[in-house]
């Protein structure tokens, strides 16, 4: 059953993601966060729209550009920011960092640092979820469709009729390279060739995403097999922290900024869903204030002690190896 939730929560979630990423960026520039980061700014409507259709038993596999997926799915901003800083209180105790976040309590089976890894993980999770009426969702970018993971797993999921939704966030660039320079044919045609139910959607309108998400979950949950969604979107920042985005076509970024998912959502909230501008402003200000508190607390959080190097293997818990 498809019902749209015309509420402020979707907007607030997107503001949370945008503000989180801006905070990460500023902490990076101050040298508080090390290594690299891949920000989700501009693509917030995709993760937010799909997450709004999740059931408690469903599972999410995301990418190394995964902060947005994590927050949308329910990972707390505090535990995620602590992880960015490598703190003991991080969602993975500081072991995973930005690119490999896992939070099973909040249905996030992982963010995958290898392009296409999310596709394999969700396909496998769907084998287990088929037993309990659950659906797995894999997020990945346009670059991932040229990985073996994509073709192999779409085929695997289709022949096994697995309940999995493959969400390709086409942000026009695979890292620094325009997708059309390195991709033969059209993206959706790949899935259609395997007779996987497919659709291309506006990935910057959170309600358009939510509508497609509700229909996709419904289809997959009923045992019809996988769904492929191409969500058209755009990242407002470079691929990673070291990328100034010089490959963008003239005027392209400005044109997409007019279609900022936050601007679109704000307009629809006021024009169609009856919120006042003041209510929307207040919601945004509230999220930003909470993020500032998160930031302050994260910077005070403890780092892991060397005893947290831990061990290589999980100890055996079950009786094993004996007779029948």
């Amino acid at each position, binding site marked *: 059953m498809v019902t749209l939730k015309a509420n402020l929560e979707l907007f607030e979630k997107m503001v949370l993601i945008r503000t989180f990423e801006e905070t990460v960026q500023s902490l990076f520039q101050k040298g508080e966060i090390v290594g690299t980061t891949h920000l989700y700014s501009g693509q917030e409507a995709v993760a937010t729209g799909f997450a709004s259709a999740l059931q408690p038993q469903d*599972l999410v*596999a995301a990418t190394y550009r995964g902060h947005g997926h994590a927050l949308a799915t329910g990972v707390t901003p505090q535990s995620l920011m602590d992880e960015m800083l490598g703190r003991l209180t*991080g*969602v*993975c*105790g500081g*072991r*995973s960092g930005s690119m*490999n976040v*896992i*939070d*099973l*309590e909040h249905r996030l*089976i*992982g963010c*995958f*640092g*290898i392009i296409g*890894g999310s*596709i*394999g*993980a*969700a*396909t*496998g*999770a*769907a*084998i*287990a*979820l*088929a*037993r309990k009426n659950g659906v*797995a969702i894999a997020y990945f970018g346009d670059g991932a469709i040229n990985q*073996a*993971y994509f073709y*192999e*797993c779409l*085929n*695997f999921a289709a*022949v*096994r009729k697995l309940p999995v939704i493959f969400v390709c966030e086409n942000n026009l660039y695979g890292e620094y390279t325009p997708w059309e320079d390195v991709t033969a044919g059209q993206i959706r045609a790949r899935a259609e060739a395997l007779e996987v139910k497919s659709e291309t959607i506006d990935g910057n309108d959170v309600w358009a995403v939510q509508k497609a998400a509700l229909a996709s979950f419904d289809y997959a949950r009923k045992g019809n097999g996988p769904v492929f969604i191409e969500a058209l979107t755009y990242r407002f920042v470079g691929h990673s922290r070291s990328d100034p985005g010089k490959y963008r076509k003239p005027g392209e970024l400005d044109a997409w900024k007019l279609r900022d998912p936050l601007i679109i959502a704000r307009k629809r909230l006021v024009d169609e869903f009856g919120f006042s501008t003041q209510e929307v402003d207040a919601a945004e200000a509230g999220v930003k204030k909470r993020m500032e508190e998160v930031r302050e607390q994260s910077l005070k959080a403890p780092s892991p002690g060397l005893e947290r190097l*831990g061990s*290589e*293997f*999980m*100890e*055996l*818990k*079950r*009786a*094993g*190896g*004996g*007779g*029948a």
Partner: protein
Amino acid sequence: MSPSQDELSFRNAIREAIDEELAADSDVIFFGEDVAEAGGVFAATPGLRDKYGDERVFDTPISELALSSAAFGSAVAGLRPIVEIMFADFLFLAMDSLVNQSAKYWYLSNEQKSIPLVVRSAVGGGIGFGPIHSQVPISWFLGVPGLKIIAPSTANDAKRLLKAAIRDENPVLFFEHKALYATTEVREELTGQEILGKARIVREGSDITLVSCMKGVADCLEAARLLNEIGISAEVLDLRSLRPMDNEMIQSSFSKTKSLLVVEEGPITGGWAGEVISIANEVKIDGMKLWRIATPDRPIPFSPALENEFYPSAITIFESVRERHAR
């Protein structure tokens, strides 16, 4: 001719272990290429699909990356998958899901969830399968924290170890040497709890320790018999687990014999034999002898004229020990 009731073939040991674990736990599933309808190209798994149904035992596309990552994902989501990668040479197509995902998941998730996953795979040469269906890629995986590597040498031990691997909470690579499938031995009653990571002494001796795994153990036992005839008492240590390795047993045997030869089927450079020697070498003994025999640093040649001379054998082991001990 099928073995009698009180005999167990290596091939049937594999099937029985999977069968018993499928029966014991509904979360256990088994899939791979040609494993269900056909029962496996090495005929190790016939009848399991009929017994447990297509939801739990099924054939997959020829997609090693997809099937291994599907195993990983299903383990994340609560199942205990066993997959077959038909030939270990195909494992390289599955490396990302095994090395980057499965092996690291428990650790980098901060111990939220382990990956109880078993990858069965056939290894080894000597039967004319050529350079890309005969390799023993243990050393490729030896340096991967979080992975266990099991390599049994006999039918009873294969059953014991495979059942333990399925019940283990960590990802396990379980290697089956092709030359062993048809071997049989008297069936042993399996009792007690097997913990992965333990070696065993399969023959006691006092003058030298011969260390190997899989088919190499039988070669070492035969060499030990020949050495006994010329007055050299050889102890034979079956590693069983390559990761983790049983450092304690390697060192205690070496402390006793003061001489140790490792026999590896695999290229000598970067092989696991070097790791065994390093472990033994931590025990400082005057006049100690430590060396290895492995295969040449070449792709495995097809021609029987070349392949038959390629691997360590009971004779090469015997002659190497005799030569060293004569010095």
